[in-house]
């Protein structure tokens, strides 16, 4: 973990200095994750490519806002990527966009809040993935619908034809397990 986040800080430092090599390295580290995420959510490879380009365009232009000490480049990239993808799906489907967290609050969280200790989104993701495999199918299903489809709990309830309370319960227990991984990771 430590090693990766140190490298992240170096990436941020290079990006802030407008070093294109920094962007190339950021791309090499995070583009596969972002691209996979875009394809998973949008299910269209050419749109995914466009969004990867837009994403790194944002990274390049926002470089000054990153703080190397916080080492949150990867978290920011993945969070923005997910929001971009959900936005795209929603506007393509003509769905309301009001529920999705606008990008700015996420920015604020990532930029303004110093983590307890440096973390790497990739290591973090690995841990989350492991934790996810321990969830039961219902927990998995509701979390996937929320994260990859951007459905609200009400929509998920309608989709799965389950009472809203049940959906909320599955989600709560699922998130709790994932959250404990983050806590453990931080504690380690």
């Amino acid at each position, binding site marked *: 973990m430590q090693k990766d986040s140190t490298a992240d800080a170096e990436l941020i430092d290079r990006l802030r200095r407008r070093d294109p090599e920094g962007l190339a390295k950021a791309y090499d580290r995070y583009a596969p994750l972002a691209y996979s995420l875009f*394809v998973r959510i949008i299910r269209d490879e050419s749109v995914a490519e466009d969004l990867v380009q837009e994403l790194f365009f944002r990274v390049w232009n926002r470089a000054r806002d990153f703080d190397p000490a916080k080492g949150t480049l990867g978290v920011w990239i993945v969070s923005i990527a997910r929001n971009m993808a959900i936005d795209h799906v929603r506007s393509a489907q003509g769905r309301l966009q009001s529920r999705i967290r606008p990008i700015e609050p996420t920015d604020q969280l990532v930029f303004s809040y110093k983590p307890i200790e440096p973390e790497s*989104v990739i290591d973090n*993701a690995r841990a989350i993935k492991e934790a996810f495999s321990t969830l039961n199918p219902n927990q998995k299903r509701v979390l996937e619908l929320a994260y990859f489809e951007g459905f609200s709990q009400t929509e998920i309830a309608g989709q799965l034809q389950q009472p809203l309370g049940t959906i909320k319960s599955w989600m709560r227990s699922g998130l709790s397990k994932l959250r404990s991984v983050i806590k453990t990771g931080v504690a380690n």
Partner: protein
Amino acid sequence: MNDVYELYVLGVLEPDAAQAIDEHLGDQCDYCLQHLHDAVLTTSGMAALAETRKPPKLLRRRVLESVTPRPSLTAWKFWVGALIAASVVMLSIVAWAMQSARTLRDQVAGLTQERDQLQSVVTLLSKPETKTVQFGIADNRPHGRVFLNANGGVVFVGTDLPQVATDRTLELWVIPKNGAPLAAGIFRPTAQGNSVNVWNQPVDMAQIQAVAVTVEPAQGSAKPTTQPFLVVPVG
């Protein structure tokens, strides 16, 4: 532990609940910010649940080129460079055209000269007083004829003449019985070793002992600088 922070970050809260958190965060509640930060970590980690796909190789280049556009200075340099390149091409074309014109002019001049020479030869040959001297007989060795006319001058027609280096030339000499050899023109044999050289000067037939050919520097010499490889007595 409340899952409201993750739901908020995921954007799956109902609008009124989300708005309440928005307002609360405006107050910079440290407790909530810390939990939201953890929630961001948790939810961002869910990206790894997506099946891993490799981005197309060309995308990397596209991304890097789109976010690192050539600075204007480089663009400026590029256009100036292109202009210079275009100018160089232009100059080359002009130079080539000029060279072509020069070559053409040279060729015309050469043709005119050849025509004049031929006329001289024809004129000389047609005159009854023209003296003809044959030299050499075997192939592969210089052979040919020398025509001499008191008013027309000397015409040297040679075959199987040696090739000379590009910075060298053959030079014809009229060698009088007394005195120094007279330079009678420079010439280069064709690839086949043939050459005609016309020296349009009145000559004192009685005083000419021989004609000779030497290899000289390209511009020719006033006096022979090498031993003649061919001497044709005409006396």
